[in-house]
């Protein structure tokens, strides 16, 4: 087991370096002079050519690209991701402020999607080729096919503007003191809409995984022992069918974050996604780099965790 874990960790290391190279390459490709971004165009006009050259030299902008990458990497690894153009915070501080709301949104959406999607998949698998299988299949495909922003606009139209049940935007009622109910009230619409797509993914996945498992011999054995169908399905089939979901769930993390860009922007939810959108419009590349770096590292870590967890619950994996 220890050998397996060490092996997985070792495989992750080149992937981590790969991520930093890509993030830096994106930055290097971006148009615009880094010095002008740092000092402002106006300040540069007032400088002489010698002064500009001296500033470049002292900031290391004239170094070859691999030296600049190493300099950036050694700063980034210590948590120094640079400064955005506006505001008094460092990129790291901004990310720390914004990560909480995003995690809250993603975690809620993730749990909701599992609670909706997995039962959908079980029902489809148990009633394969019946009308209810058809109905839930169409529903699952609809969840996969409706653009999240269309669902969001529709939900806002119905639940906020017409029925006035849920607020249209924000983390909490402006000016009101923090209250748990107020937070939940604001969380429901964005998290359910973000969850819709993933519920469809889980439903499709659970269905095919369940169908495969139901034909395996140990399920026949369980039936032959005379166990009640309920026990066969829940204790024997479902547990095994859901095992590979550990990996799929971890891979979905990045998609959840991608989806939260649109949802956060529509609902004015002050998380990483909305920050990323604003940073794109203002061309604040250090912020975007920080978001990609944090997000990818999180996905990498969760993939690693999923691999290990999977090996713990399914010993067969360790002998591959």
């Amino acid at each position, binding site marked *: 087991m220890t050998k397996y874990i060490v092996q997985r960790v070792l495989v992750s290391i*080149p*992937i981590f370096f*790969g*991520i930093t190279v*890509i993030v830096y390459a*994106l930055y290097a*490709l*971006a*148009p615009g002079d880094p010095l002008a971004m740092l000092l402002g165009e106006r300040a540069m006009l007032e400088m002489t050519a010698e002064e500009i050259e001296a500033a470049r030299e002292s900031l290391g902008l004239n170094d070859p690209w691999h030296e600049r990458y190493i300099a950036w990497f050694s700063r980034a690894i210590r948590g120094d991701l640079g400064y955005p153009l506006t505001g008094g915070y460092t990129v790291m501080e901004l990310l720390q402020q914004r990560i909480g709301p995003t995690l809250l949104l993603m975690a809620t959406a993730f749990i909701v999607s599992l609670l909706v999607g997995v039962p959908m998949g079980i029902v489809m698998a148990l009633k394969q080729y019946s009308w209810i299988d058809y109905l839930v*299949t*169409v529903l*699952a*495909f*609809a969840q*996969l*096919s*409706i*653009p*999240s*922003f*269309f669902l969001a*606009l*529709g939900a*806002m*139209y119905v639940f906020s*503007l017409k029925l006035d049940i849920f607020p*249209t935007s924000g983390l909490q009622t402006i000016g009101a003191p923090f209250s748990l109910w107020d937070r939940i009230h604001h969380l429901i619409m964005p998290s359910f809409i973000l969850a819709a797509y993933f519920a*469809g*993914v889980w439903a*499709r*996945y659970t269905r*095919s*995984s369940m*169908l*495969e498992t139901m034909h395996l011999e140990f399920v026949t054995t369980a039936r032959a022992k005379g166990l009640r169908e309920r026990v066969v399905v829940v204790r024997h089939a479902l547990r095994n069918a859901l095992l590979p979901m550990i990996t799929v769930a971890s*891979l979905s993390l*990045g*998609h959840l*974050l*991608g*989806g939260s*860009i*649109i949802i956060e*922007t*529509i609902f004015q939810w002050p998380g990483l996604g909305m920050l*990323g*959108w604003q940073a*794109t*419009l203002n*061309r604040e*590349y250090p912020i*975007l780099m920080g*978001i*990609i770096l944090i*997000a*990818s590292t999180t*996905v*990498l870590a969760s*993939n690693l965790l999923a691999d290990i967890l999977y090996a713990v619950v399914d010993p067969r994996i360790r002998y591959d």
Partner: protein
Amino acid sequence: MSNELQAEQQFFVDTPARRAMRRFTRHRLAMLGLGVILILVLLSVFAPAIAPHSPTKQELSLYRKPPSETHWLGTDTFGRDVFTRLIFAGRVSLSVGLVAVGIYETIAILLGAIAGYYGSKLDWIIMRAVDVVMTIPTMIVIIFLVSILGPSMYNSMLAIGIMGWPEPTRLVRGQILSLREMDYVTAARSLGLPAYRIILRHVLPGVVAPLVVHATFGVAGAILLEAGLSFLGLGVPPPTPSWGNMMSSAQTLNILERVPWLWVPPGVAIMLSVLSINFIGDGLRDALDPRGMETG
């Protein structure tokens, strides 16, 4: 074998292709999807002939008119006919989906074939690159790329195409790894055929079926991505209509509440086309690989 049976078999040979075709045409949802997507494609292709008005000409006297006999789906803020823009937008959205997927499936075939056939070091490098790109959240990088390249239809195609290749590369590689061990490939190799010829003529055809299924779902995903990008103002820039950018004005509550004909029709169009393509993909998967592969 009796003569009678032999005669019968001469008239009807049940090839795998025929069996697949039969399974596909029996898939009701796939047939429905095929019908809907055909209509949408025809509307898009013949948009200039069908459209009753100009998609870009502004007529300020027709400011946000509700649906009527002359303007079936009403007019937008610049007095342009929504129905006309809707079918012109279909050209943009559908072609972005097709081209983006074309880009990344081509990359995937190249890289997957190299990794799977040659193995060893090249395989290790390519598969680590796959791991890296799969770990990076796609949507954020696409947004980053589009902001570097500047928002345009071609850049959306390119950005989506650049980020989509890891999954199909894995698919192609896995398929080739198993095909490589087949006896007929060994036979081809012992005949002294060059590697490129073995890959092209003997190995790649076996990859086509799963790749077609993957690409079909991919087109649906790419249409959703482009719509999301354009909705955020980072995809196809106005005045060119795309289903996504037609809806971005609905981010103001006033339009959302009072002018639903601006955002409902494009939303329905995206959903219909994506749903139809997903149904077709499901039918193709059942037809080409009855054992069923996963992914949604």
